[in-house]
């Protein structure tokens, strides 16, 4: 890296990735302010066609960048992500800054606190530049359920970026930011990562604090990272991971180092390729997983095919458990204390009118499914049965991880689809998460790595899965998958144009 500065240098750095930006800012080769200006310029250039952001935090970001530059000038260490522009999914609370979950129901609400991950990013010197679009309350696989309009896939503007973390995924894929945060409840990080040609990590449940993540389904929600490359997604995950006393479900132990072993290869690593999704995925998705497996085998891994039929219990169990928890988590949006209120003659009518006006169709559908599933007389047949299925999935994974160090599968049944292709049939849309849901139910980590292009030239990801807290080896394997893939399969790409 030269000591040259200015927009060209900042642009090169943004494309070179998170670690490169931080290194240059820490070394004083470029200022955080210059990097930020370039990122904001890219947002200005592409936001109209992409719609990644619900809100761009230009002023707050400028102040944060100045603080980093002041620290560097004073000889203080501004942190591991110094000056790195970051996109935050708009279900992560930001102190004093609107946080909407892409829902009308949170209209006008400003959280009085930062999510723990936001605090950790800030303390590491990262610059939050905006709140990204999502399916309302993270319920969806295309961002088409956003109350503020969908986000477009930078590889093909007529297609969805996936979801629910589509805004972050598209922003990273378009090179607007080198790294971003999303959340994964049923695949909401890995599926859009796959559709946008970037890396998306869903960590072990409990590795990253959920404090300040607006809940969709609390037993499943987990925050994770997006970046074009495995190493940068891992670096950001290292920064946000670790115990938080404010989240009772966070692991009370030091977070593992993720970067050390990234280059260690896969010699002798036992990898199982899951066969059970093959009937439900497009040939290009299946082929990507097969080719990745072959590449890993030639790199020295012991690769075997494995059938885990319980994986197919995941989807139906998920669509009971997640709506059940959501029906309770979303009860608080009642018009009494904050957000939208539609008045009525009495409090029940006010509650009902507010919720009818504030929630979109998919959210209302899931609240109703969840309410029904938990109702007296139905609880055991639905929620109880789903919990038993979840236990079977957990046990099946545990058994598989006795034979294998990691598992491999397609991330999604298909590459990015066109707007409207699945909006009329919710089940079709739900199937987008077929391969990603099981590891949410088990709480285990998984990562999607861009590996191939489908016949339409759209990126296709491959999923690497590992047992709880198996992130170091999982990412080591993911790095090997990445190494075997041509650069043309991943972002950043020029929105609407072709790979740069």
């Amino acid at each position, binding site marked *: 890296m030269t000591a040259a500065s200015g927009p060209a240098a900042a642009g090169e750095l943004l494309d070179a990735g998170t670690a490169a930006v931080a290194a240059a800012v820490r070394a004083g080769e470029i200022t955080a302010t210059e990097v930020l200006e370039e990122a904001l310029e890219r947002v200005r250039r592409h936001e109209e066609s992409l719609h990644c952001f619900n809100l761009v935090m230009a002023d707050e970001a400028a102040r944060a960048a100045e603080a980093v530059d002041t620290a560097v000038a004073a000889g203080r260490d501004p942190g591991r992500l110094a000056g790195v522009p970051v996109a935050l999914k708009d279900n992560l609370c930001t102190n004093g800054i609107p946080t909407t979950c892409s829902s009308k129901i949170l209209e006008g609400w400003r959280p009085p606190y930062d999510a723990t991950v936001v605090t950790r990013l800030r303390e590491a010197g990262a610059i939050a530049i905006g709140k990204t679009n999502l399916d309302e309350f993270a319920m969806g696989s295309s961002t088409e359920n956003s109350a503020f309009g969908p986000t477009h896939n930078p590889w093909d503007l007529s297609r969805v970026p996936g979801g629910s973390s589509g805004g972050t995924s598209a922003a990273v894929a378009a090179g607007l930011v080198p790294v971003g945060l999303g959340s994964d409840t049923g695949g909401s990080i890995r599926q859009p990562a796959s559709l946008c040609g970037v890396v998306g990590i869903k960590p072990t449940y409990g590795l990253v604090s959920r404090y300040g993540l607006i809940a969709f389904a609390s037993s499943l929600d987990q925050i994770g990272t997006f970046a074009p490359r495995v190493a940068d997604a891992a670096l950001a995950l290292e920064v946000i991971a670790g115990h938080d006393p404010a989240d*009772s479900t966070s692991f009370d132990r030091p977070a593992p180092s993720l970067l050390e072993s990234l280059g260690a290869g896969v010699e002798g690593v036992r990898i199982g390729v899951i066969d059970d999704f093959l009937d439900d995925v497009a040939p290009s998705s299946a082929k990507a997983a097969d080719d990745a497996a072959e590449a890993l085998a030639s790199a020295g891994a012991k690769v075997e095919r494995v059938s885990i039929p319980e994986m197919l219990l995941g989807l139906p169990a998920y669509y009971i458990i997640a709506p059940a*928890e959501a029906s309770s988590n979303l009860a608080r949006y009642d018009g009494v204390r*904050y957000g939208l209120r539609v008045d009525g003659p009495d409090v029940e009518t006010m509650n009902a009118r507010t919720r009818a006006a504030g929630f979109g169709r998919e959210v209302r559908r899931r609240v109703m499914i969840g309410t029904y599933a938990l109702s007296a007389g139905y609880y055991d047949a639905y929620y109880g049965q789903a919990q038993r299925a979840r236990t079977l999935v957990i046990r099946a994974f545990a058994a598989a991880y006795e034979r294998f160090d990691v598992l491999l599968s397609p991330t999604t049944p298909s590459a990015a689809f066109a707007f409207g292709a699945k909006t009329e049939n919710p089940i079709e849309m739900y199937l987008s998460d077929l391969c990603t849901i099981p590891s949410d139910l088990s709480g285990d980590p998984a990562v999607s790595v861009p590996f191939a292009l489908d016949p339409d030239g759209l990126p296709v990801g491959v999923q690497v899965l590992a047992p709880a807290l198996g992130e170091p080896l999982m990412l080591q394997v993911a790095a090997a998958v990445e190494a075997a893939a041509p650069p043309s399969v991943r972002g950043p790409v020029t929105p609407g144009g072709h790979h740069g």
Partner: protein
Amino acid sequence: MRDGYEMVIGLEVHCELSTATKLFCGSPNTFGVEPNTNICPVCLGLPGSLPVLNRRAVELAMRIGEALNCTIKRSIFHRKNYFYPDMPKDYQISQYDEPINVDGHLDLPDGTTIGIVRAHIEEDTGKTSHIGGSGGRIHGADRSLVDYNRAGVPLVEIVSAPDIRSAADARAYVSELRGILVATGASDGRMEEGSIRIDANVSVRPVGSDELGTRCEVKNLNSFRSLVRAIEYEAERQAELLVSGASVTQETRHWDENAGRTHPLRSKEEAYDYRYFPEPDLVPLVPDASLLEAARESAGMMPAARRLRLAELTGAEPVSDPIQTVIALDLDELVVAAAALGADAPLALTRAANDVAARAEAATALEPSAFAALVRLESAGSLSATQAKTVLAELIESGGNADPADVARRLGFEALPSSELDAFVDEVIAANPSEWGRYLSGDPKVGQFLLGQVMRATKGRANGKLVAEAFAARRR
């Protein structure tokens, strides 16, 4: 209770725990502050916030379980879902089918054993006030105000078995339970501040029946007086229905203290479906050995032990009225301290149970040394009983820290010189010749009458003991 019927009562007692902070956050747990000041993102249920269990609350809940002879076990929290504006999350975090304490019992002072089904941990709700409209209810109100200071305050709900058979036993149960809750340090015992709140499940059945009748849950019982009155009213109401051939409808009823009656709140048949499910934001609560040990060791003196201590000190029966009254009002320390300062213990008990108890609220400031000095003045004959009561009342009203001898002097309560006493005694004998005759022939009752006459004549300044001695001297 109407002849041929008996009451069957089970009580649910909600006890606010005396913790410094709330059950799931760091907001202060204090009563009586400006509305909506003891709040934070967690107890307001703001989006993204998460609960973290208060270890101290768990410790106190375990102490309660230990004191009520419960089995203390691994427990989990559930969400109880229903919409109400005083619930910030529109669900309450509560323990449901796996509570921390189960299967205990509490022995009443008379030896009756009342089963304890469970004593579980839950969070309190906020408080609504309804402005305008009728009767302070939400429906028809012009507007409603909500104070979330109480939202998230830790509660332990203690559920008794339906083992209670009278309003008096219900009272004795709550009184004993309150003493235990105070002794464990779990509660300040202030019913008037809502620290202890009671719901009563009341049913009636023919005497001799083993079956339980249809029950009603009576809410809003926040004093011993309303507890007793409400149970008596409700049992009588149900018995009347049965006698007339009608049946009791299972429902929740509200006690109206002013009207002295219960009225229906909502019918159980159309009760909310609470859609309980395990709270995913919390992990199971496993009582570790150190917590259990702390729960066993740190309890204070239980009511039964307090009764025994007073009985040994004063010679009164442990379950006598004075001792029960003194314990119920937490005045036993005062009696014990006064006795240690040389006051006559039986007399101290009498004064505490009658005269201090009558002013229990103001008497919290009464200094044991002042109280002891007063009792000493009375037993030495320097003050008559009537004078001592007046001085004690004055002492309490004036802040509880004056010298009773000064108070007596200010009130003009010099003891009557014995030379003057003789004149009054002779005067009373002369004015009541027939009573004096009966006294001389050994009628003990008339002695009290004559004593009263002397007291009236001396305006209470005479010492009763000396008067009795004067009568006895004239008899010989």
